[in-house]
């Protein structure tokens, strides 16, 4: 799940950055054009509305880039706690398919008692700020 989310996030950032850069370039070109035409003929056409419109698009894309950039995709890891019945020996590992809580999984390496699964849980490494 987080793999897929990461891919989507990357795609969205690339797309909106592209739009942002493109619109800024267009605005610059329009400005230069305006100046050049003004120099040549002394009367420049009014390109202001177009520039404003494109700047709004640029602003929107910038907001989107920032929004996607801020999304932190949580990294999960599964943990299984093994515990000895007698001496309290504890070991952590990744759970395997078919494991369940209070399943007996073997002998204690310290005292020879029964080791069972104390708990299986999911740990989040980075807390999400998802939309």
């Amino acid at each position, binding site marked *: 799940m987080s793999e897929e989310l990461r891919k989507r996030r990357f795609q969205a950032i690339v797309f909106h950055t592209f739009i942002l850069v493109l619109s800024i370039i267009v605005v610059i070109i329009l400005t230069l054009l305006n100046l050049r035409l003004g120099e040549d003929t002394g009367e420049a056409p009014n390109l202001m509305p177009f520039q404003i419109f494109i700047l709004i698009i640029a602003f929107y894309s910038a907001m989107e880039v920032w929004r996607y950039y801020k999304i932190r995709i949580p990294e999960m890891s*599964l943990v299984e706690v093994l515990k000895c019945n007698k001496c309290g020996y504890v070991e952590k590992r990744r759970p395997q398919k078919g*494991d369940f*809580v*209070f399943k007996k999984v073997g002998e204690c390496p310290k005292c020879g008692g029964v080791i069972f699964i104390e708990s*299986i849980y999911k*740990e989040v490494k980075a807390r999400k700020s998802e939309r």
Partner: protein
Amino acid sequence: MNGNIATDFIMWFLFLAFFAYIMRELEIWRIIRDIERYISLYKSIRDKALVVTLNTFKEVAAKTKSRLDLKMLEERVMGLVESVLIEPVSMDPFGIVGKLKHIVLTGDRTATQEVKRLIPEASETDVENLKNLIAASRSLNIIYKSVDHVYRLGRKFKSIWLLYQLQALLPFVTEAMRALESSLEAFTNGFPVGDGAGPLLAARFIKKFGGNELKIEEIAEETIMAEVPFKNRKVLVIKAKGPSGVTGRLDDAFEEIVVKRKIPVKMVITVDAALKFEGEKTGTIAEGVGVAIGGLGIEKFNIEKTAAREKIPLYAVLIKMSEIDALSVMSREVCEAINVALKNVERIIEERSQENDIVVLIGVGNTIGISP
């Protein structure tokens, strides 16, 4: 000169009007884009659920070395996913809980039969996990289809308000979709989910005070009862029978104890996972009175009825979590909260009952990945 100013003014006015119009269209377009993005997300989640379900079927079949007709499997699973549960008519609500229970049990039995027909050698745990996967796929399918339905209607009739409403609901729908999606991981592997907080607490209570010569019996279908001595009291712990993913017949078990066996129960404590508010922390514990059982309300109704008739006080301990926490693999916070809740349960039993009393402790929830 004057004419120039006039045309300029008109041009600006036209531009503003055009701009206002464009902004509105853009807004509609943005909403539609937003909804479409969500719907394609829902569709991908639904499809993923179907793939996971089919793959798990194949895995189980490979494990039991049974032959599987892939085409038939796909058809059957799709049939199960598209199947519906028709609620009883509620115009005359007298006795509706009994009818609802009958229908739900029929649905459950049918699902078991269907799965067993596809893979006759599958173990009980595998059957239950497959049923859970199918149930998750079914919910995902229904949500996806109904959202898509409203969206299509909104577009067809160009109803911006329908689209606004749909968009306003999407955060909640997405939360539910994500929760169901993350439940797939737990159900394919058979790991405990957050909703298993109640059963896990019950199992820990049994483990902690049960000792070695513990008597565990299957008191109702898919439900166990353990007699645990605790501070000179007798605690009857009821939970669904693990580690397969079932929620048990808790009301039947309670009925068996109180009515059929006529055991003089002095109090009942139910422990369940409860939905938290967005501002609350996962693993917050709340205490209260009443029966803490979610779902359709059948078991809640029946236990309340029996307890009220026999005048047995009802206490509840709730472990709060989000919908996603409840359906995905149990989070660390919930796992730790269970130990705190266990202390609360011990304290409640000690403070609110006398020695030699008989107390019933019910761990409510899906016991997947939790034994006994």
